[in-house]
């Protein structure tokens, strides 16, 4: 036996981590001009920016027309035609929704915005209740308000819905419905029961194999032929169901990726403790799987949001459709009107998609707190 070794007491170590100073020149050198190749790239990109950005800004803001009420105002100038947007703003936001009833849309907008903001601001309490209300009560109230026919509210037929309202309705239904459906399909595809598995695989592969446009055409013109007599589904409802099912198939494959990434030990750990299938799925498997694929889920949602513009091909006037229709209107047709409209639509889409992206990033940060060592 060797005599016990007495460890030397730890020496006092009070030095702070040295501060690294690089300065502006140092930063420039390190990040932009660190090698010949990087220097060339930096100069090229700089040149591209100088060449491209000022003309766009000139067109959009400096040479643009800001005042006026008709196309004549825009005819003489070579810049963006903002009066078009101002004049048509009501249509862009509400579509052809009866003007007297637009307050109902506003109420839906405000409740939705407040609810979402509540969920996104981390310090606010009772997120569970707010989320549950947003998923159950809110769609119900929105439906009653938007379509009317109850409590003395006059009916506004869905053909009049349009603009941002329609885009948000289609996107919200698609996003909210596709997630639970996708979860079920993903679980079904991994089920040990052959019937469930085969049905899930067939469903996913059929919907994924067909273009969205085809699906929408089928929903708008073919489906009514197959529905039994007397059963009439609103065209918008048919389109919403189509969008939800189509996106559920995509969501299912994303979620399946998350399920597969989960180590087998997690399933075994849960099984050994006596958890049944649904309990271990809900408490152990899904929370981890969904978290793993959160970036992909949001990616899907963003793509879904933009794909809502496809409903314009079956005769709906969504955000893009309403702008396009306005720009071809004889009152406004002109070289710069359509471009201005597209720029505005693009900016609006971007604001919504970028918000989703930022929210998902902050959610990822919150959820990964347990990973920190």
């Amino acid at each position, binding site marked *: 036996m060797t005599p016990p070794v007495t460890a030397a007491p730890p020496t006092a170590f009070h030095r702070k981590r040295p501060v690294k100073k690089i300065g502006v020149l140092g930063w420039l050198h390190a990040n932009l001009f660190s090698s010949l190749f990087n220097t060339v790239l930096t100069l090229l990109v700089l040149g591209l920016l100088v060449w491209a950005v000022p003309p766009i800004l000139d067109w959009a803001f400096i040479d643009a027309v800001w005042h006026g009420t008709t196309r004549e105002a825009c005819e003489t100038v070579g810049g963006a035609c903002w009066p078009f947007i101002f004049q048509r703003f009501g249509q862009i936001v509400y579509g052809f929704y009866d003007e007297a009833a637009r307050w109902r849309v506003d109420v839906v907008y405000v409740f939705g915005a407040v609810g979402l903001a509540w969920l996104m601001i981390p310090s606010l309490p009772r997120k569970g209740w707010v989320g549950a209300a947003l998923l159950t009560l809110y769609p119900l109230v929105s439906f009653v308000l938007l379509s009317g026919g109850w409590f003395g509210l006059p009916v506004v037929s869905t053909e009049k819905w349009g603009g941002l309202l329609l885009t948000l309705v289609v996107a919200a239904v698609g996003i909210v419905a596709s997630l639970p459906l996708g979860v079920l399909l993903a679980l079904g595809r991994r089920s040990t029961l052959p019937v469930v598995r085969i049905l899930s695989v067939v469903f996913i592969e059929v919907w994924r194999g067909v273009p969205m446009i085809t699906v929408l055409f089928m929903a708008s013109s073919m489906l009514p032929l197959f529905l039994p007599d007397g059963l009439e589904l609103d065209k918008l409802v048919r389109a919403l169901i189509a969008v939800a099912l189509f996106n559920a198939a995509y969501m299912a494959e994303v979620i399946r990726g998350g399920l597969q990434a989960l180590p087998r*030990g997690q399933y075994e*750990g849960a099984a050994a403790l006596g958890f049944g299938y649904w*309990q271990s799925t809900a408490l152990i498997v899904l929370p981890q799987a969904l978290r793993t694929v959160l970036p992909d889920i949001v990616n899907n949602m963003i793509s879904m949001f933009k794909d809502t513009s496809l409903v314009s091909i079956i005769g709906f006037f969504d955000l893009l459709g309403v702008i396009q229709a306005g720009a071809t209107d004889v009152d406004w047709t002109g070289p710069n009107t359509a471009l201005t409209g597209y720029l505005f639509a693009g900016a609006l889409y971007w604001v919504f998609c970028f918000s989703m992206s930022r929210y998902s990033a902050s959610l990822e940060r919150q959820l990964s707190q347990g990973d920190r060592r």
Partner: protein
Amino acid sequence: MSDAIIQLDNVCKWYGDFAVLKNINLTVKRGEKIVIAGPSGSGKSTLVRCINRLEEHDEGDIVVNGTTLTRDVRDIDTVRREVGMVFQQFNLFPHLSILHNCTLAPLWVRKTPKKEAEALAMHYLEEMRIADQAHKHPAQLSGGQQQRAAIARALCMNPKIMLFDEPTSALDPEMIGEVLEVMVDLARKGMTMVCVTHEMGFAREVADRVCFMDAGEIIEEADPETFFTSPKRERTKLFLSQILGH
């Protein structure tokens, strides 16, 4: 055989055409501590995993605490509620704190009230000497702490039997000791234990019997004294000389 809590009769299992378990017969009495040793690939892990049906056996009977394991899911659930298991890779749930890892099964499987489940969890975490880590997530703990948390999690279900599948094989040498210590404590308290392990010191200290497996068979079964001092089979002698030699 009224006090037998685990009974395996002629248990056989194949992976494809490869026989992993060949006519295994094993009886474990209430309160007994069994250590299963043997070279890797000899079927040790498969054997313990059959006891709580993480693996399905193809032939023979397995009776655990009076329940015969069949395809019937209710029987499997009954057995799993009474049998705790500790894995080589801990298999803690990384999205939950240590405390929630421990309360999850009592809350949802046993329907224990929340307060009671938490008190139970804290009791076992204290016994495992990691009560101060209760609110951390698994990734923030060392390997030894994680494994002790995993043992606490299994104990929170008040199991009658504990299965250990190489509980120290994924640990740094410094942490093996702390895990073995709590396992010895557990053995002293009278828990029925079936341990697959290479820790021969642990076997010598707590085991009532050591089973030596090779190529899917239990080829030698003896009390630790006999097993270590006068093994009968050549394969056992070779194994012991290799594992104790360094």
